[in-house]
């Protein structure tokens, strides 16, 4: 846990950006940023297909599948990401077979647990965006596809999804922004991502201000890129009225 810094409030040194722009502290922070970006990329790649599957489950004609999809979404998004992290890091490994456990501990178990938690969490939110995007396409489009002889999946793939994409991508990008911010919570299980490294630098150098300015700017820059992507997409591919 972080120590309280109240004791040295009176002797806070002047801001010295050089400290985090080069040298060992800089390297620590940059390695943290890299790991954060990796968490973002891996989770994104895993979440998107999982979210699509869950969304299709929720829209399927079979009641049991719909119920399963709904249970997945509700049970995951109503629990804080932090609790997911704690569960997958501290709780779940107990249940794994010995061989998997050995493999996990040989790998980076912190990061893997974080990716599992982030993926489940993000995909639950993304599946809702995909689902409402699909529902935004009028039902007659689906009927028209089926009437031409396409099956459920083929109609989805050829008729509905291409139209739903334009509605769905902007909220998906906004979920990606949430995911980016969510990677910081991996700190609690000791994943050495950006937030973790900022706290490390802080406690090693007692330069909280510099470390946090670096981390904040890094988080903001990536957020800016993600938000920019959303505006670009909405401008380039506006929703076509049917």
């Amino acid at each position, binding site marked *: 846990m*972080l120590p309280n*810094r*109240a004791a040295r*409030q009176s002797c806070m040194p002047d801001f010295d950006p050089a400290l985090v722009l080069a040298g060992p502290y800089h390297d620590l922070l940059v390695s943290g940023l890299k790991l954060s970006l990796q968490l973002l990329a891996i989770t994104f790649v895993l979440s998107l297909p999982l979210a699509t599957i869950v969304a299709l489950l929720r829209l399927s004609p079979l009641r049991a599948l719909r119920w399963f999809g709904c249970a997945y979404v*509700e049970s995951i998004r*109503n629990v804080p990401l932090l609790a997911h992290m704690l569960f997958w890091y501290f709780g779940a490994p107990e249940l794994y077979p010995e061989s998997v456990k050995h493999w996990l501990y040989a790998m980076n178990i912190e990061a893997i647990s974080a990716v599992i938690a982030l993926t489940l969490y993000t995909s639950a939110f993304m599946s809702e965006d995909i689902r409402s995007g699909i529902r935004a396409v009028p039902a007659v489009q689906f009927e028209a596809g089926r009437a031409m002889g396409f099956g459920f999946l083929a109609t989805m793939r050829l008729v509905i999804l291409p139209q739903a994409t334009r509605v769905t991508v902007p909220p998906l990008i*906004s979920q990606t922004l949430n995911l980016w911010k969510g990677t910081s919570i991996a700190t609690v299980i000791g994943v050495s991502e950006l937030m973790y490294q*900022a706290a490390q630098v802080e406690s090693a150098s007692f330069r*909280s201000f510099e470390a946090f300015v670096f981390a904040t700017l890094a988080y903001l820059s990536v*957020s800016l890129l993600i938000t920019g992507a959303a505006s670009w997409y909405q401008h380039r591919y506006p929703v076509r009225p049917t």
Partner: protein
Amino acid sequence: MIELIDTYWLFFLVGQYPNGPLGGLSLTLILASLGLVLALPLGLLLGIARVSPFAALRWPVTAVIFVVRGTPLLMVVFWAYFSLPVLTGHKTDQFTTMLVALVVFDAVYLAEIVRAGIKSLPAGQMECARSLGLSWLGAMRLVVLPQALRHMLPSLVNQFVSTIKETSLGYIIGLTEVSFIAAQINTQVFTMPMQVYLILGLTYFTLCFGLSRFAYWLDRRFNRGASIRVAA
């Protein structure tokens, strides 16, 4: 598992209270409620500033909102943790630190809800109120906000759900809210991490799912699906 609940339920609910500070689930709820209630007036002001015709007000507020929305809550918590003692000149406890971070963070999200609520009304309402001779602020207060707030009610409940989930970050600064208490129980029991964290998850789920359903019901009852949606 029954034994686990039987032994620790009180600790889980109130922490060491009355023999020590209040903690556990009750602290989580108090923190979330207080956070949202205090963030409301601030969010309302920011939201109105965001749609106001005065650029000198609109631009700085828009910039602040963008910065906070682009920053993880944990970063805001860290900033509060380290800057509050410097700013106030004395030691700040974890509860206050977390509360300040939550209020800042929630106010910005509420501002977006307020803005969306205002924007969801037909432009004719503001125009018509102005044509009667009301000033911009008068029209906002008497005509636009009363309608917008009603549309916003479900979003507010959903924001409360988010706030409850956000309080879990108190764990990181050692605030004895329910996640932290669960971790303490886990350390004491040691052999049942799976069960401890399942119970923690179930607790959050019951609370948040119940509230989400309530928000959904409000939405159906008052807005008939016409309520506003804010990109998270």
